[in-house]
């Protein structure tokens, strides 16, 4: 991407709105909640300027519902929230997963369960992002570490959501959401925007809204009001969109939903490796915590420690390959996360005993510091 904008100080939450608008977002429904509120405030100001719509709904549940309704009407739609609100959105989020309605849900994570610590950072919604809803379904979750990356990743969230007709979660944390940072935005013309697949009516005689016409697991989508009436239901449905209790239909639908994601892991999964080629210990991290890991690694490398960082940008689907393909020299994995230990369970499953997996966890409302990462790496290397 070519840089054209002048460098400016931008907040993570602001970069999210700017990225969303660049991706084509024209609808936002939300409810105020710290630390995501700036996203709603900025969307309220920015959207009408580009002909888009903003609505502050009566609650979190309604916001998620309105987003799905707007997406069905053809607008790219987003909502933003934090842990408690994310919990409230889950049922409708599951509806969007099953009915394959593209949308982006931003969760700016804050501390603790329940009301917790509204103004403090945490990364405690890792599992909620994957399994907060009920039943089996796929979902994509991305986690940015830098303000500029929030911009890019929000665009990517919309693109993936539209491409695969699946809700995409942008899992931020309070540090990244509230951080103001020097940002240069790309030339709008250079931004790649993906729109939902549309049916080719010269080839399709009867439109079945959930038929896998192209064999890629992603049915082409018609928007409401375009003259092709169809039915959308949160019940398990056949290719025509109508409810079915047939075991074969049920199994086919759930399998297809999974397949459209699982067949495209290389497209969806993104991560950054730093000094991993010859690392003995690799710190796996994401979001703001990854920045501490990177700083720690830079310091430790100067001291000769063979440490690397694997920064996950896609959290779900989980990048198992990235773990399994770590260098043969790697013996230890430190999973640094601002929670009591969530992602580590998946890393352990991924490591299958090949690596010694150790957690570096902080859940006191403060970001893990580079010093803490350094201390952990030294401790692990000493014991190794």
């Amino acid at each position, binding site marked *: 991407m070519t840089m054209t904008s002048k460098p400016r100080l931008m907040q993570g939450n602001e970069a999210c709105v700017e990225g969303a608008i660049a991706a084509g977002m*024209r*609808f936002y*429904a939300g409810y105020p909640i710290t630390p995501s509120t700036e996203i709603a405030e900025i969307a309220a*100001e920015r959207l*009408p*300027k580009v*002909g888009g*719509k903003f*609505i502050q*709904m*009566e*609650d979190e*549940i*309604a*916001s*998620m*519902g*309105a*987003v*799905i*309704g*707007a*997406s*069905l*009407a*053809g*607008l790219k*739609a987003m909502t933003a929230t934090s842990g408690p609100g994310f919990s409230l959105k889950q*049922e*409708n989020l599951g*509806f969007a997963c099953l009915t394959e309605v593209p949308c982006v849900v931003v969760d700016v994570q804050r501390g603790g369960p329940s009301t917790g610590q509204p103004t403090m950072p945490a990364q405690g919604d890792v599992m909620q992002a994957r399994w907060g809803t009920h039943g089996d379904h796929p979902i994509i979750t991305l986690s940015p570490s830098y303000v500029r990356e929030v911009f890019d990743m929000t665009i990517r969230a919309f693109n993936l959501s539209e491409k695969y007709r699946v809700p995409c979660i942008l899992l931020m944390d309070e540090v990244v959401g509230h951080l103001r940072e020097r940002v240069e935005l790309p030339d709008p013309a250079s931004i790649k925007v993906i729109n939902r697949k549309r049916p080719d009516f010269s080839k399709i005689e009867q439109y079945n809204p959930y038929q896998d016409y192209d064999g890629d697991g992603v049915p082409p989508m018609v928007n*409401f*009001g*375009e*003259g092709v*009436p*169809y*039915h*959308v*239901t*949160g*019940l398990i449905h056949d290719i025509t969109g*109508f*409810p079915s209790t047939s075991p074969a239909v049920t199994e086919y639908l759930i399998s297809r939903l999974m397949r459209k994601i699982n067949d495209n892991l290389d497209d969806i999964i993104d991560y950054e490796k730093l000094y991993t080629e010859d690392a003995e210990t690799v710190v796996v991290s994401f979001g703001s915590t990854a920045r501490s890991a990177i700083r720690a690694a830079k310091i430790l490398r100067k001291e000769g420690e063979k440490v690397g960082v694997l920064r996950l940008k896609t959290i779900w689907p989980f990048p198992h390959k990235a773990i399994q393909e770590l260098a043969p020299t790697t013996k230890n994995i430190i999973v640094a996360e601002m929670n009591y230990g969530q992602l580590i369970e998946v890393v352990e499953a991924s490591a299958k005993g090949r690596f010694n997996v150790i957690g570096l966890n902080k859940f006191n409302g403060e970001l893990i510091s580079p010093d803490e990462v350094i201390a952990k790496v030294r401790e692990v290397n000493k014991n190794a």
Partner: protein
Amino acid sequence: MRKNLEKYFRIDKLPHIWCPGCGHGIITGAVVRAIDNLKLDKDKICIVSGIGCSSRAPGYLNFNTLHTTHGRALAFATGLKLANPDLKVIVLTGDGDCTAIGGNHFIHACRRNIDITTVVFNNSIYGMTSGQYSPMTPAGAYATTAPYGNIDRNFDLCKLAQASGATYVARGTVYHVPQLIKIIEKALQHKGFSVVETVSICPTYFGRKNKMGSPVKMMEMLRDNSVTVKAAEKMSREELANKIVIGEFYEENAPEYTEEYKKIIQKAQGEE
């Protein structure tokens, strides 16, 4: 079915799942007839529902239909309508769906005065889950979750709608169908948030639990206990105690939400 109505139905999905004598088919028929009488553009109509017996109605109707989550029809409908104000959005919902789990969405949709017509299928019970009391179940009535009689006081939905800001409010019954069709037509033509509470009958759960007899007996009850808004004005509180007041309660021209938002867009773009 009458030939000219067939295009509005997904004939292959019929017969519907509703029990013999269920009033919901009557309301669905009235909605379709109102749409046909007004010759609305079929492709622009979106029918949105929540969960429950009533909320199965959209599945039988040949429009853009959206069967959402329990109680949330109005939230989804608000998104649809605001995203594309050219759509004619109709919400079909039940008394439990609309006034219990969806109560918050209902009052706020009223307040915003967004151009959506909501037809509430009020059968005083949760039918799909087999007979629990709803916020519209009359005090004293029996339900599977009110085995000793219901002590909850029920909403007067029309008063609630009006107080919340709805700009067209009316009530009909499944006995008085010609009148019902007329008020649904008026609701559909009204610019703003319109509410038509339709008193329906649930012979299977509400009827049996409350020993009301056959669907015919329940229809007779509607016939014998309904009074018009006009007649009700001259009646005392006591006289109205167990009556169903039917007709139009309120009509007002007020700023409509999506129109107001268009002005917001103009304002925002004017400031550029």
